[in-house]
């Protein structure tokens, strides 16, 4: 015979104590469910973030008043930051002259609220003053018309390029927006371009934007002051030359701006240079914290589950002392008894593992169904779940099993 038969017999012995077996495996079920569900969520989060980032320009450097860090790395004093000098259109012009830079585009935006044009309405539009090259840095495609040009900027032309949402909502079916005018805050702008649809980024709609030349914007609107200037002031989107690594361009821009802001070598930057990489790396900190939390939660529940299994196996060994004696009398070796009880422990924990996997996958599927997060557990989590639960069974089953196999057959058989 083989140990397989012993294992099968052990598995079937669970049916004698259904309720007890279920309660015992609960800890493992919770542990494995947690692992699978959290991995599924994190994977979904990763996927969503990757998609979001790819909708932005991949190499674009965002020069802003403050450093952007996703996460809670340190407390920020917005009062201090708001006192930093505003970035200017001239800064952008200077940056664009760097050899490593292909385009440096100033931009500034404000909310417009609901726009009307005759019978048509578009909610929650934003107005962005932008320079030439904003289509490159912002990854915009202009299938109809053109983007804002240097000429528009220099002459403070009242022209605009509109997002697909704006075009769809303010113009009728079959109506060509190009060449038509839009009235914004009492001024009329000629539509010179319509952007291709982009969808939302990080939950923010992008197709509700109206771009006008930044000089035109600055002529009609004042710069924000105080704390609002931190996020709502001019920012500069910098696109490095092809073949130039992002870090090289970042270093050049940093040096130039420090010079222009008259900073001494011992002074910190009074501006932020934000790249996708820097934002991703701060996101990664959050990710690794989440992973640690998961490992902790799963580890603790597997530990608790393992202790539960050990406890119930010790009870089982005590209850079945006589059975162990009988088995030894008819020729079971210590190894046979060890295998029997170890198999029962592993069977308990594995069943818990399988149930946990099913529940975890279901949780992932549920999240995918009701939220935009594409949560899906990769195949290796199933292997991981089975492996972990079996390992828990072995680790916490070995002591009770050894205890069972070490019983003296004569005493065991007399046990009442």
């Amino acid at each position, binding site marked *: 015979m083989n140990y397989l038969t012993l294992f099968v017999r052990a598995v079937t012995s669970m049916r004698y104590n259904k309720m007890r077996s279920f309660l015992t495996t609960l800890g493992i079920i919770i542990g494995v469910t947690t692992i699978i569900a959290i991995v599924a969520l994190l994977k979904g989060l990763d996927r969503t973030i990757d998609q979001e980032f790819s909708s932005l320009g991949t190499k674009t450097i965002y020069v802003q008043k403050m450093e952007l860090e996703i996460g809670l790395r340190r407390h920020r004093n917005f009062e201090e930051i708001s006192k930093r000098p505003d970035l200017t259109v001239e800064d952008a012009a200077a940056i664009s002259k760097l050899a490593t830079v292909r385009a440096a585009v100033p931009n500034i935006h404000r909310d417009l609220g609901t726009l009307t044009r005759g019978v048509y309405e578009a909610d929650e539009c934003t107005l962005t003053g932008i320079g030439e090259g904003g289509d490159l840095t912002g990854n915009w495609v202009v299938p109809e018309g053109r983007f804002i040009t240097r000429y528009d900027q220099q002459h403070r032309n009242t022209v605009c390029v509109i997002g697909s949402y704006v075009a769809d909502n303010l113009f009728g079916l079959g109506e060509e927006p190009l060449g038509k005018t839009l009235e914004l805050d009492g001024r009329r702008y000629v539509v010179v371009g319509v952007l291709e649809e982009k969808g939302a980024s990080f939950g923010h709609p992008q197709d509700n934007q109206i771009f006008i030349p930044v000089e035109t914007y600055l002529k009609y609107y004042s710069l924000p002051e105080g704390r609002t200037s931190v996020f709502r002031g001019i920012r500069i989107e910098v696109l490095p030359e092809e073949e130039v690594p992002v870090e090289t361009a970042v270093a050049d821009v940093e040096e130039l701006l420090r010079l222009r802001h008259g900073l001494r070598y011992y002074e910190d930057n009074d501006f932020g240079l934000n790249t996708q990489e820097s934002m991703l790396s701060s996101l990664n900190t959050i990710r690794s914290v989440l992973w640690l939390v998961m490992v902790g939660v799963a580890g603790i529940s597997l530990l608790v589950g393992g202790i539960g299994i050990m406890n119930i196996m010790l009870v089982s060994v005590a209850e079945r002392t006589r059975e162990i004696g009988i088995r030894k009398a*008819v020729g079971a070796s210590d190894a046979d008894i060890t295998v029997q009880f170890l198999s029962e422990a592993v069977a308990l924990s594995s069943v818990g593992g399988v149930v946990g996997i099913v529940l975890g996958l279901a949780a992932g599927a549920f999240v995918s169904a009701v939220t935009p997060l594409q949560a899906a557990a990769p195949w290796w989590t199933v292997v991981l779940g089975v492996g972990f639960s079996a390992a828990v069974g072995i680790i916490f089953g070995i002591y009770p099993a050894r205890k069972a196999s070490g019983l003296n057959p004569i005493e065991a058989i007399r046990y009442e």
Partner: protein
Amino acid sequence: MAERQEAAVARAALERLIELAGVSKVYDTGHVAVRALDDVDLRLDAGEYVAIMGPSGSGKSTLMHILGCLDTPTSGSYLLRGREVSQYAGKKLAQVRNREVGFVFQQFNLLPRLTAAENVELPLLYARAPAERRREIVADTLAKVGLSDRGHHKPNELSGGEVQRVAIARALANDPAIILADEPTGNLDSKSEEDLMQLLDSLNEMGRTLVVVTHEDSVARHAKRVITLRDGRLA
């Protein structure tokens, strides 16, 4: 000449199934050492039918445990089918119990969760017998004890006499050298007792070696030889 001598030795060893020489068993209970068996010499030949008698505390159980390899002697030698098993331990001892000894207990000691057939199968499982062979032997031995149609019943669905016959079938499963029965009729009514003793008698007639531990004369009467123990010594 030498060959003939060897064959003779082998035949003698086969006949001489069990040979105990100077076997003692001392239990160390802490401050007092209890001498449960004291210098016992005993020879059992193949096909014998022996009853071991004696008052309680005389060492009957200890002797049976040693004969059945559930325990090993403190000193002395135990030859079972020509093998010195007194120094065996662990897996080897378990193997001897499995192949050479069949136990029948007063308390029956069937596993209550298993069916009669599964109980009979147990020693075969530990002997690593293939499934096909196990099924054959279980059917054969259940037939031998007259319970062919009761194999799928659990012990609690059988009468006391039937349960003990299942236990005998289990003891026979691996075709052991010796059947050891410890008060086999102790929990049976007199009708079942008579049936069971007839079964044991017929097994002996077919050549089985039987050792029955009992303190009832009605049981001992079936045996062909009676050994009496007193204070750990053969009387």
